[in-house]
């Protein structure tokens, strides 16, 4: 291996690692706020990628009907759960969020999709179509569970992942799709040729991380989300509705997932069930980072990305084995260091 191959592998790993970092961040966030391990995180990636790929070729993505269906289900589910309490303003807000919002997005897509409105509009549209699915799913699947145990929530999350994979096949079909890159620019830096898409990925990832940091550190809503994660009862006592915090956390996870999908679909062919393996790498990073630390998760995700690119160079048949095996020594080390009385509920 010479220096240029080494650098290319590092670059590849960092670009992939950036995506895993985003996914790891949203997994940590969702777990901290809701105690749900979002197994279905990868589905949002696949849906985001496939939706953008359809839009980029001037097709109307099937995802809009999935969005409408989930909105409808969330509307009905919410109405049933809160039939005794929801009235007036709350009912109106619920209807706006679960019915009017998807209707508006569907209408915008039907108008804009055939006209090839340009990359920026298509990216925004793809993200807008997929993002609300996540809070709808929270409303349908997790909110009724209230204060269920982590295990019950995990089983539900696995079921949700399987259901979404099936729905993905229905709405996107079995073929894989790929989209053209955001730009064909290529930056030469010494022996490195950095494609424009890599710059886009790194730039947007960094911007999103800074945005998340500002949201959690500077805004009261962001602090309320952190507070819910730190002390759920305390959060309820200051008047933060924890269900709303869950909806918000899922919304962020859906947004991050969808954006990640849009970013990678120009690099790799995305299939309806391809999100799981990508999400699993984010999960590996989140676990290595301790499932509680945001910087830890980001660092671990970059390591996972680099480990993946090097193992695919040396032993490509084993690259998945190598990446996922990395979790074992980390878990061993953590359990030896912390003993077995770790922060279990």
């Amino acid at each position, binding site marked *: 291996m010479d220096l240029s191959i080494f650098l290319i592998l590092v670059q590849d790993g960092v670009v992939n690692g950036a995506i895993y970092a985003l996914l790891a961040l949203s997994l940590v966030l969702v777990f901290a706020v809701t105690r749900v391990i979002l197994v279905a995180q990868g589905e949002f990636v696949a849906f985001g990628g496939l939706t953008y790929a359809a839009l980029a070729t001037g097709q109307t993505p099937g995802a809009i009907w999935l969005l409408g269906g989930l909105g409808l289900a969330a509307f009905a589910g919410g109405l049933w759960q809160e039939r005794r309490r929801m009235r007036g303003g709350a009912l109106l807000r619920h209807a706006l969020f679960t019915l009017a919002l998807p209707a508006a997005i569907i209408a915008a897509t039907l108008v804009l999709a055939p006209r090839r409105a340009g990359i920026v509009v298509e990216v925004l549209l793809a993200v807008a179509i997929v993002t609300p699915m996540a809070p709808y799913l929270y409303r349908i699947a997790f909110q009724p569970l209230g204060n269920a145990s982590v295990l019950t929530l995990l089983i539900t999350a696995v079921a949700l992942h399987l259901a979404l994979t099936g729905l993905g096949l229905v709405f996107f079909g079995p073929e894989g799709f790929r989209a053209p890159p955001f730009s064909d620019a290529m930056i030469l830096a010494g022996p490195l040729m950095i494609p424009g898409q890599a710059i886009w990925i790194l730039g947007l990832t960094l911007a999103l991380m800074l945005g998340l940091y500002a949201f959690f550190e500077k805004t*009261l*809503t962001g*602090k309320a989300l952190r507070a819910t994660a*730190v*002390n759920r*009862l305390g959060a309820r*006592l*200051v*008047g933060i*509705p924890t269900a709303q915090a869950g909806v918000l956390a899922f919304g962020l996870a859906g947004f991050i997932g969808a954006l990640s999908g849009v970013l990678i679909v120009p690099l790799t062919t995305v299939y309806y069930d391809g999100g799981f393996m990508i999400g699993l790498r984010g999960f590996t990073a989140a676990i290595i980072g301790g499932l509680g630390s945001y910087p830890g998760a980001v660092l671990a995700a970059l390591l996972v990305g680099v480990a993946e690119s090097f193992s695919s160079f040396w032993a490509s048949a084993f690259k998945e084995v190598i990446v996922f095996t990395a979790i074992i020594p980390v878990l061993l080390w953590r359990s030896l260091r912390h003993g077995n009385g770790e922060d279990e509920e």
Partner: protein
Amino acid sequence: MSLLEITDLAVAYGGIPAIEGVSLSVAAGQIVTVIGPNGAGKSTLLNAIMGILPASGTIAFDGAALGTSDVSERVQAGMSLVPEKRELFASMSVEDNLRLGFYRFRGQGRAAMEAALAEIYDLFPRLKERRAQDAGTLSGGERQMLAMGRALMAKPRLLMLDEPSLGLAPRIVRDIFHTITALRRTGVAILLIEQNARAALQVADHAFVLETGRVTLTGDSATLAADPRIVEMYLGQARSAG
């Protein structure tokens, strides 16, 4: 009309009743205390009033029955609870804890929040000194101040305090009770639960005695403080405990 009116309240843990047939009321601006031995159901009572525990019977706040409304809706209505375990946001700064207490008014803008914050810092100057510190690093007395400050940020009309003096040094307990007396002047009604019956009866207008889940005695504080049963059961004990 009373601010809080509880009729025939009952809470059970898995079929075993913790409190039964409890009726009590708190008038606006009044300080009411509930005293009683450990395990009498005092904390259960406050948790039921706040909506943390499901209860039967009726709880009316400001004339409206609360029904099955959620904790956050009760905060919106003007109720605040400082729980026995304080439930602070340990890994967040003192000031962030206080700001989150203002969550109920989050639409009112920055100036309103800063004004509320300044009031709390006036009441608890110590919190201002510690504003940048994580809540988890505070001493027991400071934690109680922060928990009370956070609850007061929501400008409640009814403040419920669960054992505010528990585990605190006598000097700090005195400060806390001074603060409770000072709060009376702001017009907030206080429902105070205490094992320190002597101090509680001194600051309260009215008192209830809760024993094994039922109200066994009620009356204005001065009368109860002179009642021989109370003197023997609670005040004597308080004296020997220091």
